């Protein structure tokens, strides 16, 4: 794995921003996004949203079952998603697969910072209360649970507040 990883372009990033915190840098995509591709992202999103609803991942109760260890469902979903994702990335690297437009596929590494601990714990608390990580929030709203719009707006406010205080927070 180590050897194949070295073939990957590590995107430059400012020292104070981890790659995942610096959009636009992590993917060295020089071509402007074409409309056909935007349509493709929409379709992937639609399929993804359908899976979220049909596997009841958007259900507050499923998240409760997970954190009460009363059901294997969510562990099975996340675990098998990781396995398939891992195999996919392994094959993409092994075969040196290209994007549809022929560009090299690069994945920025995640840099450790203490925010992953503090922020992770805070997000976990929110996950238990709202029964949703960000993805299901969108699917819940689409499913007609319109009160979740308040949750989404508050999540935006939370993200904004993080941005406002970012330099004063331990990382």
């Amino acid at each position, binding site marked *: 794995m180590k050897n194949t990883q070295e073939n990957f372009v590590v995107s430059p990033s400012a020292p104070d921003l981890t790659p995942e915190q610096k959009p636009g840098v992590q993917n060295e995509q020089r071509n402007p996004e074409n409309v056909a591709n935007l349509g493709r992202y*929409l379709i992937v999103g639609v399929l993804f949203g359908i899976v979220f609803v049909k596997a009841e991942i958007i259900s507050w109760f499923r998240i409760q079952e997970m954190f009460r260890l009363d059901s294997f469902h969510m562990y099975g979903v996340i675990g098998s998603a990781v396995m398939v994702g891992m195999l996919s990335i392994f094959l993409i690297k092994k075969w040196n697969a290209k994007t549809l437009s022929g560009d090299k596929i690069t994945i920025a590494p*995640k840099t450790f910072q203490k925010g992953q601990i503090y922020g992770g714990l805070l997000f976990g608390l929110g996950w238990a209360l709202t029964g949703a990580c960000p993805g299901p929030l969108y699917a819940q709203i689409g499913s007609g649970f319109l009160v979740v719009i*308040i949750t989404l707006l508050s999540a935006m406010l939370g993200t904004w507040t993080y941005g406002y205080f970012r330099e004063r927070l331990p990382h």
Partner: protein
Amino acid sequence: MNFLELIRQPWPWYIAGPLIGLTVPALLIIGNKPFGISSSLRHACAACVPANISFFKYDWKAESWNLIFVLGIALGGFIATQFLADPNAIVIASDTQQDLAALGITDFSGLMPADLFSVENIFNFKGLIFFVFGGFLVGFGTRYAGGCTSGHAIMGIANLQWPSLVATICFMIGGFVGTLVLLPWLMGLVG
């Protein structure tokens, strides 16, 4: 049983999980995009209220694919609920039902608990806790952690990134504490 009846049933984890995992190569192959959803909240902030904060001063339009992707998720939620809905009530583990009933959550008929996620709760203490406070923690926590379940737990671990494993363990610890400690305490407060 015809095909429509079949897909209207709840999908098991071994169908749903691999399909979610396939989102990772799909986004990489379409346009070299890393799977991640919480970033959309940041892009929305950068687009709507950047307020001269350096964290929101970047070319969010270059990341508009992510906003379109989450729009698709909402649209997919609409399609699944309108056309593919399971006619039967959701089946919830009896242990979870008992635990929640002890906290005053007794309506198990929908995907979301009607005791909490109803319009009349928007302007009361329950709404403040479950929508406003809960949502704030999700938005603040994911950005502080640099990703959510998709960006860290799935994309990050799939790419063998140990910081993502640390983040995911912390998501789970927070979730257990939130469910077993914070939720009973808050439900006691709201009565």
